[in-house]
């Protein structure tokens, strides 16, 4: 492919987050069962590649599907126990999934057949050479997995399974009473979700190239998929994609921006440290103020958002011409987010002459105040 290597790697990372966030959201976003355990399934994927491809000499292409299946088996096993218990809903489910990530990490650390605490180097792995050089191979693999994952997320959303999951999200007891096979639906969605999480993790292992327990099972994977999906909106397959795009481009630019000198060099502010502050703040603001995420608002204010985006990019081009294209994109995207942030009630009052909004976006106040 004729792209510069930097854009291929940047694109791969973006596609990786598309796959991770979509796979998480197709279960949690639709069903409302909040999983903090994405790291466990991602980790199973990463370590399957580590063990099969690096230690046993399997080709990467053969290890990836096995990783997906193993991850799905873990998900189904967990679901089989957890979904049978009425009590393990809501926040208790969230903590159990968090615990599963710790347990998988502990097992990998203890077992010398998996990791044994020393990490695994993946530079000897047999890569699929017919897919081109390393960057373009990663990009192609990432693209295939992201497309499959997003396709699955969109298909589930518009299928009977999706409707069942949304009814579980709204009220599980009522859904069960109306004949939704809640246990089967949750198992299916969780199985598919964890399958793709493992698949994507298996490819990502090659990108990390040296895998350690601490990095693979860190809090970053669950944190990022949660923030991305909450930001974009969890009830539509596009939500995680919007969230992943915003978070990934923003954090990438902040990481590369280096230090910012303030007051004539008297105070240096490391922008990469700001990253986590921004991520945390975004999560808080979105949960408290924009419960549905950006996607429903983007669908309703698409022209305003597009105009703000174009305006932002053009302004960035005029003021700082030597900015990289990704930085210009970030400026435009932040301008668009600003347009989306004001709550619908405020916007409909302001633009009341153009007719009432089609559907009220937020819940009625009595539901929100409970």
């Amino acid at each position, binding site marked *: 492919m004729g792209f510069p290597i930097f854009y291929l790697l940047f694109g791969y990372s973006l596609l990786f987050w598309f796959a991770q966030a979509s796979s998480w959201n197709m279960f949690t976003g639709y069903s409302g069962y909040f999983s903090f355990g994405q790291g466990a399934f991602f980790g199973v994927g990463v370590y399957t590649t580590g063990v099969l491809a690096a230690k046993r000499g399997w080709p990467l292409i053969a290890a990836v599907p096995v990783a997906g299946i193993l991850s799905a088996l873990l998900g189904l096993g967990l679901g089989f126990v957890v979904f049978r218990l009425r009590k393990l809903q809501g926040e208790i489910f969230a903590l159990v999934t968090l*615990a599963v990530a710790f347990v998988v990490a502990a097992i990998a650390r203890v077992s010398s057949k998996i990791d044994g605490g020393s990490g695994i180097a993946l530079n000897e792995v047999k890569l699929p050479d017919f897919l081109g050089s390393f960057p373009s191979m990663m990009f192609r693999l990432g693209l295939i997995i992201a497309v499959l994952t997003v396709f699955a997320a969109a298909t589930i959303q518009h299928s009977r399974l999706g409707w069942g999951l949304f009814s579980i999200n709204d009220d599980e007891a009522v859904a069960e009473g109306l004949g939704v096979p809640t246990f089967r639906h949750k198992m299916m969605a969780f199985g598919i979700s964890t399958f793709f999480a493992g698949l994507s993790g298996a490819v990502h292992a090659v990108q990390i190239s040296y895998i350690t327990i601490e990095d693979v099972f860190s809090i970053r994977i669950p*944190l990022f998929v949660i923030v991305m999906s909450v930001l974009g909106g969890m009830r539509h397959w596009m939500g995680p994609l919007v969230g992943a795009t915003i978070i990934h481009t923003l954090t990438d630019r902040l990481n590369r921006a280096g230090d910012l000198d303030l007051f004539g060099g008297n105070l240096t502010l490391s922008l990469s440290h700001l990253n986590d502050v921004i991520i945390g703040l975004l999560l808080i603001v979105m949960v408290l103020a924009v419960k549905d995420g950006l996607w429903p608002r983007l669908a309703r204010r698409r022209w305003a958002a597009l105009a703000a985006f174009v305006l932002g990019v053009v302004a960035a081009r005029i003021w700082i011409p030597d900015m990289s294209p990704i930085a210009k994109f970030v400026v435009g995207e932040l301008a668009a987010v600003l347009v989306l942030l004001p709550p619908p009630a405020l916007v409909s009052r302001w633009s009341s002459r153009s007719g009432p909004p089609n559907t009220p976006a937020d819940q009625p106040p009595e539901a929100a105040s409970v």
Partner: protein
Amino acid sequence: MTLYGQAIISGVLIGGLYAMMSLGVSLSWGVLKIINLAYFSFILLAGYGSYELAATQGWDPFVTVVAVVPVAVVAGALLQLFFEKVNIGEFESLLVTFGLFIMFESVASSVWSADFRRIPSTANPYASSSLKIGGFAFATPQLSAFITAIVVGLLVKFLLDRTYFGKAVRALAQDREMARAFGVDHRRVAVLLAGLASATAAIAGVFIAMSQALFPGLAVEWFGIVFPVVILGGLGSTLGALGAGVTIGVVAAVASVTWGPSYAPLATFVILIATLLFRPEGLFTRKASV
């Protein structure tokens, strides 16, 4: 045999520290219906505060409690005021405080870097000292944390069981709307209780700074200790937290002596999962209690 005896003693003592760390989370979750991950940050920041005072100002590590706890109480109370203001649900609280947790962790790593920070032994004579009774060693930081945990636990228990404030807290925990109808000022009780919970977290932080090296990633590791203790002890139960802390401490210590230190978290989580499956209300509570 001596090995196991020593493991059980260390487990019991460290269990006191675990109980102190968990008490705030347990009270907040059980009574205020807020799963506050920010308490993990409070423990960490209190530890760093204690480290800073002891290492650079030469304070005695025990004395740093005087400075660290009031700050934590104010911070915890302000945070609770904010939660009352935005009227937050149990589940949103988990996400919002997760955001706060990430922010605090990033602040800690930009101020103190990701390196290990330990109070130098000249400023902290307690770290290496221990009380020896009949061939068993009682490490001073753990022993004092254990005694403090018992004292604080009993004080909180007394406060909740015997005072008017405690009555209001228990009323809130049982039925928030009804308590409000009977004139319990929810906001005031919640803010006071959050301040109390933050104080216990800060005390735990001081003992941690005294006994080990600090680094920002430590707070995440505590998830694996505190949540099992909270669930095992029963939400909002003070004595339950003490009992569960000691149980987890002993199990982890025995597991690490028997199979090796990496098995300690595994054993802890087996207990957590088993508790959730068979007795989700906790080992140390009767079904109907708070």
